[in-house]
């Protein structure tokens, strides 16, 4: 059995790697700059009036990017056209980098583009160091200059440059201060345009970045138990996930326990009275229950039983109520219990319907077997036949099912937690996805993967324990 478990665990490694790759890939594809997200205020958007301030902002950004590892290459290798430099990831901020990427994709001459980029920054710094007395004409020069940093279409660039030229022509003082740099900039733009090498864009080249990359650091710190820092409020992800997991577990486990307690007897009884009115009615009822969308029932319960509109506000409103700090887990559950009743109902009834259907099916199958007939023939009381002979054999599919709900538990029920405002895993991941808080999303997805796999393993073991015929080594 140990050998079997080891083999299974070994097979799960690629699965987990794939899950991590999917999560990482999604985080890379999402638009938006995580560094700016982390910094809360965009350092470049605050009014920068001196070259020192610009350098300060750049430094702040660079430091944040280093903390988050955003200044590293994304993955172990990359496949890019030959025209691309292999150090592009060092250019930060992200929107500047993306503009340059678009220029490369068009002209394919990094050398010239880099020169253009350098000169642009030079000019920006210089224009900031000019005295304020030049104000009026300086504004008409600076506005296109700022826009230039994000421009990449040829027509757009040319029109911005000519706008700046006009501003220079109007003001000789300005022309004296910046004229030389500006003509240099124009020359470099011409160079980018004139020395375009689009051919290089068609030659693939594979680059190796080594293990000092974002994915590697991310994955290995996860394996070490370091889930990173939330981009949203800079709290450690583990501190956010732990209470969320706690509430989700409380919610889902009680729902599951309730569902099993009700569903198993129901399923077994209706299988024992197959074809009777009781069986038909419960079958139909459970089927309807199964199709009843939980988020609808949740909304209805919330609307009718927690608001004053209909005079039936028996239950407290959404949320967990006030939970002062310093309570033990049990005290917290006790305080929040009235808030948990409705969500638990919403979570348990679909499971109830599903489990009792399975239980009925499994039981009906077992009751058709010869040994049941034998048991009846030897005059055992019906209760004994059903529960001791029948039920024990119908138990196995229920075990697999109990283990199969693990991913659902980890994810929480997003909609139910959303409706009742329960800060569980579903609620957390919903908000994390919307605020692009990728460290949290990544952790939730990975935890989901790990726990699913654990659930499957537990099911296997339970199966072997419950049924002595199962020999895992031969499976």
């Amino acid at each position, binding site marked *: 059995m140990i050998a079997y478990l080891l083999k299974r665990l070994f097979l799960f490694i*690629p699965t987990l790697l794939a899950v991590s790759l999917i999560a990482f890939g999604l985080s890379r594809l999402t638009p938006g700059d995580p560094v700016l997200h982390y910094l809360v205020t965009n350092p470049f958007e605050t009014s920068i009036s001196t070259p020192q301030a610009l350098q300060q902002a750049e430094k702040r950004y660079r430091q944040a990017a280093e903390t988050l590892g955003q200044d590293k290459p994304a993955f172990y290798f990359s496949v*890019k056209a030959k025209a691309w430099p292999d150090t592009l990831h060092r250019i930060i901020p992200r929107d500047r980098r993306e503009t340059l990427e678009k220029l490369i*994709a068009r002209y394919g001459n990094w050398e010239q583009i880099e020169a253009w980029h350098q000169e642009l920054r030079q000019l920006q710094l210089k224009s900031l160091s000019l005295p304020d007395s030049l104000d009026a004409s300086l504004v008409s020069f600076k506005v296109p200059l700022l826009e230039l940093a994000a421009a990449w279409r040829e027509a757009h660039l040319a029109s911005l440059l000519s706008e700046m030229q006009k501003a220079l022509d109007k003001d000789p003082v300005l022309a004296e201060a910046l004229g030389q740099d500006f003509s240099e900039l124009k020359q470099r733009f011409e160079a980018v345009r004139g020395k375009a090498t689009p051919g290089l864009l068609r030659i693939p080249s594979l680059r190796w970045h080594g293990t000092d990359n974002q994915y590697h650091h991310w994955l290995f710190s996860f394996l070490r138990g370091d889930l990173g820092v939330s981009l949203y409020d800079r709290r450690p992800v583990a501190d956010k996930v732990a209470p969320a997991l706690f509430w989700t577990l409380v919610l889902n486990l009680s729902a599951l326990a309730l569902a099993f307690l009700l569903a198993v007897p129901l399923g077994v009884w209706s299988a024992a009275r197959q074809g009777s009115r009781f069986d038909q009615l419960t079958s139909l009822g459970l089927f309807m229950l199964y199709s009843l969308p939980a988020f609808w029932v949740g909304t209805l319960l919330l609307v009718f039983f927690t608001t004053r509109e209909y005079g039936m506000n028996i239950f407290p409103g959404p949320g967990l109520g006030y939970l002062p700090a310093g309570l033990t887990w049990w005290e917290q559950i006790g305080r929040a219990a009235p808030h948990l009743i409705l969500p638990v109902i919403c979570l348990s009834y679909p499971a109830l319907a599903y489990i009792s259907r399975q239980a009925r099916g499994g039981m009906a199958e077992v009751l058709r077997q010869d040994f049941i007939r034998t048991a009846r023939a030897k005059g055992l009381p019906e209760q004994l036949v059903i529960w001791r002979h029948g039920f024990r054999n119908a138990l196995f599919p229920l075990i697999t099912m109990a283990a199969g709900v693990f991913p659902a538990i980890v994810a929480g029920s*997003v909609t139910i937690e959303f409706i009742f405002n329960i800060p569980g895993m579903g609620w957390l991941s919903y908000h994390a996805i919307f605020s692009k808080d990728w460290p949290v999303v990544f952790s939730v997805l990975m935890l989901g*993967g790990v726990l699913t796999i654990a659930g499957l393993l537990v099911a296997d073991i339970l199966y072997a324990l419950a049924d002595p015929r199962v020999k895992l080594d031969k499976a």
Partner: protein
Amino acid sequence: MSNKANKTMEMQGTAAIWPGTTAPQHRLAGVIWQRFRRHRPARWSARVLLLLAMVALLGDFIANEKPLYCQLEGRHYFPVLRQYAVDAGLASWEARFFQKSWREQPYEVVLFPPIPYSAGTIDSANSGCKSPFTTQNTASWRYRHWLGTDRLGHDIAAGMIAGTRVALLVGLIAMSIATLAGILLGALAGYFREGELRVTRIRLLLNLVAFFLAWFYGIETQRFDLAEAAENGNAAAAWLRIFATVAGIFLLANLLARQLERRGWPFLGKRLSLFPDLWVMRLVEVLDAIPGLLLLLAFLAVVQKSSVYYVMVVIGLLRWTGIARYMRAELLKVRNLAYIEAARAMGFSTRRILFRHALPNAIGPVLISVSFGIAAAILLESSLSFLGLGVAAEGTSWGKILSDARENPAAWWLAVFPGGAIFLTVTAFNLIGEGLTRAYSPE
């Protein structure tokens, strides 16, 4: 055999006997249909679905702010029909239709649809959630909001009809994608289980190279063109070019491989097993290990513009695993049956055996899984729009109307009607799945 089975069936009246997979396909389908029809809930569900499909198809003629027919200054118009032509770019509206709303035109003769509102029409006189039973501020009973209005004054009945189309489209398109992927991958895994899918080393090598090149020329170098095309709103052409590049590269690689295989090289010509079962099942495991709704949410966070079509595609790409499992299990059974062996012995090509003999016999039970899958897809879409995702801001869906009920607890009609519609549709598809299960299982 099947003749005998049919006779017995006639004799016994109700109890049909499973004729076995050797029955001719048309016969089998007939038997299944007979049994399916005998299950009353399934029959009723089929009728309900037919009705819903009609509502979805003819929705524009049932609920629309434009008249079905009108006469203006002696000219005849069919505005609802004409809208289709306008959408297709074949016609345009005269200026007068922009100057006044459809309700206020000086018609000589006019015939409005039964519900004279579109899903997007805002009736500001009845904003702020008017109940179906209170007095509404309308000109006559003809303009009454039979199912009430929402906070902005949208007609709920019109929204429900527009939502029918969204729900059925999601179920249909998402599950078409899922079924296609599921059947293909499941069949691959089930039929070629023990490494019977063998390719030469040279073909494998060329395909790997092709994969690399397709990635580079198909995606990496066209990335920016695609982004720009999407900004200008003609992404379709860019996607088509990408698809053509990728398909062309793989086609070339395989044509080349075919030529080279003929040379009979000793090393590169050697055949390797591909173990599709292993790969496909790993993929299924990965997709099943991630909580579905979360993955869906994450995918939708990547595409900025929310559109119900993205939702369909993403649901389709995530929900094929169940069908693939089913298909695989079914083919594992079928491939060992005598008639497949016979077909192999007769020297039929693998492709012919797979597509003409094995797949048709395994496909029936997959229908069950598809039917349940449609129910799940509709449920998933409505939970997404309930969470405020998927359907674009101006679009309507059942889940979206339902989500308004959370903010307006007094407006029970915002919760009851759309939820009831979701329930009805989901139940209908589930009951059909159940009916198919009964029809296919001997019991």
